[in-house]
Every structure is written in C-alpha cells, then in structure tokens.
C-alpha cells in the first residue's frame, strides 16, 4: 500500500522545515552567502546610478542561483550522508512524491532568502525592488530553478566531486530560465510598458512547465537504487 501522494510530499516538506527550524544550518548559510555576494558585486562593479539600474536584476538572479545551488548541495548531502534518502526510497512512497517534497522544501528556503534579499537590495542599491510584478517574477524564477536544482542535485549526489559538479551541470540547463527571468525583471525595473516584459514572464512560465513535466517523467530514473 502506498502513502497518498499529497501526504508523502507534505511529510517530506514538514521534515525538512522542522530540521531547519532546529538546526538553522541551511538558511543561515544561504542568507549570509547571498548577502556577501551582493556586497562583493557592489564593490566589484563600482556602479554609478545608470549602470546600477541595468545591472541590478543581474546581481539579484546570479546571487539567487548561487545561493540556491549552495542550498541544494547541503540539503542533498545531508539526506545522502545520514542515510535518509535510502530510507525514503525503501518507504512505500512514489518517486515523484520524494522529488516534489525536496523541490518544495528547497523552493521555500530559496524563496525566504529571496524575500530577505529584495528589501536588502532596495536599501543597498537605492532602487525600489518591492514591486508586485518583480515579486511574482522572483517567485516563479525561484520555483523554476528549484525544479531542475532538485533533479540535478539528486543526480550529482552520486558523482565523485558532487559539490563541484552541481554548478557545472546546472548552470547550462538553467540558462533558459535565467535568460527569461532576467529580461522580465530588468524591464520591470526600468518601468517599461507591460507588453515589453509580459512575454518574458510567459516564456519563463512555459519553460518552467516543460521542465516540471520532464522532471516528473524522469525523476523515477534518478531516484532508483
């Protein structure tokens, strides 16, 4: 008898959140890393006002994608090292349920980091990022990164140098997401008319749906043991 899909997903998310509440290991590392990243960018780019407006969404997305990769590496390493993944695979739970559980918990963590990042960047770069459409793009983009991140981190878990492999495997595949999310948020921040950036948001949503479907189809093969 299999545990119903929803119950299994919620149980995995619940487990990850509770573990994080107690250890605060992942979120603190991700947030501090993201904060450092932004500081380093603002030193490195020496931005004047005009260049800053152009570069700000690039800084946001690069920081977010690096922070999410850090999170994936840690979260899957914990699962693998402490034998939890094997236990999950033995449990009467469907493979997509495990995948979606990990996806949702990583999504929530990265989203939290993003929600800290947006006001922070508003202060540091002196540009209002707390815009409804930008928030929507961020939520969608973070979710999109989480889909392939969850799949690829399960894939790189068994490679020899997994921490180094995840970025190498993930960045090229994340390119369509990065491109669309970046275009959308740059244009939103510039205050361009809706028709100029809505198409990028739609493209981002379309790519996300395609990736999600592929992950659903293929996660069973990555999770077999």
């Amino acid at each position: 008898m299999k545990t119903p899909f929803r119950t299994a997903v919620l149980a995995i998310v619940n487990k990850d959140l509770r573990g994080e509440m107690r250890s605060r290991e992942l979120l603190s590392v991700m947030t501090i890393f993201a904060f450092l990243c932004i500081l380093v960018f603002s030193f490195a780019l020496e931005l004047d006002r005009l260049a800053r407006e152009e570069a700000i969404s690039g800084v946001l997305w690069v920081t977010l994608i690096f922070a999410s990769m850090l999170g994936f590496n840690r979260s899957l390493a914990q699962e693998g090292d402490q034998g939890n993944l094997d236990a999950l695979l033995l449990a009467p739970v469907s493979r997509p349920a495990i995948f979606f559980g990990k996806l949702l918990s990583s999504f929530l963590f990265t989203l939290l980091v993003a929600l800290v990042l947006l006001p922070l960047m508003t202060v540091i770069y002196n540009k209002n990022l707390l815009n409804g459409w930008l928030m929507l793009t961020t939520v969608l983009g973070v979710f999109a990164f989480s889909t392939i991140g969850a799949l690829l981190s399960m894939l790189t878990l068994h490679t020899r140098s997994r921490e180094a492999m995840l970025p190498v495997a993930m960045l090229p595949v994340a390119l369509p997401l990065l491109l669309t999310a970046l275009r959308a948020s740059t244009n939103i921040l510039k205050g361009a008319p809706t028709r100029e950036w809505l198409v990028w948001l739609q493209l981002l949503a379309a790519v996300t749906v395609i990736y999600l479907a592929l992950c659903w189809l293929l996660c069973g093969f990555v999770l077999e043991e």
Partner: protein
Amino acid sequence: MTAKTKQEPLPQAVAATPMPGLLKLLTMLSLVGFCCALVLGLFVAGTDIQQGEIQRIFYIHMPSFFGAFSAFGLTVVGGFLYLWRKSERWDRIALAGVEVGLAFALINLATGAIWARPIWNTWWTWDPRLTSAAIMALTYAAYLMLRAGIEDEARKRSFMSVYGIFAFTSVLVTLFIIRVVPETIHPVIVGASPQNAQGSFEATSGVVIALIPSLLLWLTVLPITLIWHRSRIERRLEAVNRLKMQILSEQI
C-alpha cells in the same frame, strides 16, 4: 537495478564484428558527399559581392550547427530509449551523439569566429546567439565530465540519459534565440534578418545550390555514420573493460 541491464556474453563482444554493409555504404557516402559539398561550396557557388570569398565558410558553418543539432537529437532519442528499454546499445548511441555533436559544435564555433574576424572585425563578441552556442558546447562538455564522475555503470547510464535529455534545451535556446532576442547582430539566412544583423546575405539560387546538399549531408549522413562508428568503438571498449574486471576477479 543492475540485473535489469542486458549484457552481452564476453568473448563475442571483444572480437571485432565485421562492419555491416549499410555502415560501409554510409561511410562511402559521407566521404564522397563531403567532397562534393566542398566542391559545390568552394567552386560552384558564386562569390558574394560584398563579403568575397570568406562567405563560402557559411557552407560549413551553418550545416555543422545542424549536424550538432541532429547528433544531440539522437542523444535525446537514445536517452529515452535507454530509460525505456534498458538496453546498453541506446546509451552507447547517446554517448556517441554527445561526442560527435560536441565536435560539430566546435567546428561551428571555430568557423563562425573565422568568418567574424573580417566581417565583424572581431573573433568573438558577446552576442546572444554566440553566447548561447558557447554555452551549448559547455553543456555537453559538462555531460562528459559528469559521466566520468559516476562510478556505478547502471546508474551512470540512466543518469546520463536524463542529463542528455535536459541538455537539449541549450540546443533549442541556441536555435530560437535570434528569433526572440532582438538585439543580436548574427544574421538570419532563412526568413527575415534582425534589424541590426551585420553581414547578412540573400539566400539566392547560387547560395541554395551549395547550401542544400551540404545541409542535408551534415544533418543526416555525417552524424549517423560517425555515431555508428563511435558506438561500435564504445561497445568494444566496454567489452574489454568487462574482460579486464573478470580476469582481475579471477586472480583474487
């Protein structure tokens, strides 16, 4: 999981199997076709009025991208069929597709750079399409690195099938990026060029006569022949490795 994979018996697999007739035919066809396409591109097609002789590199440049496209496409097909059938043959085809496709993609990048030097006055520029083509090549280099990093054979095969399917998105991005990102300077030959494209030319009958045979050759015969040869080599390599393991385990 290991039990599911079909393995060939050892002694037969190590010995060289005679080349199938169809493969011989394809090899001949690729050699002859390649020479014919070169002659068509270098001598038969007229010289471009604005760009001169350098424009002829296009008869290799664009077909080599499509060659990479169909090789990587075969990787996707091989990946799906491996996951479905669990037959090692499909995984070998997927791997061969990546290697052949990567070689074609590098030819595409190199010829593009050579063309861009006199026409754009630079070897390389961070144009959207150039960038995505470079990232496409990097994606498949990452495939080979990942593959070398996984030790368990059966796991390696199914993981790499999954990655091979995902990696194809970078090919699709490269193909469609000049249609969606308007600020590219890369010319589009089929259909209207973007506004700021530099160095475009018309697909006149003189161009088409050299382009179509070359395109067909690179799209079909060339990748299929090379992938077939490469997967035959891979099959013998795997057999040799298995034999090695068997001998080692017998010694202990």
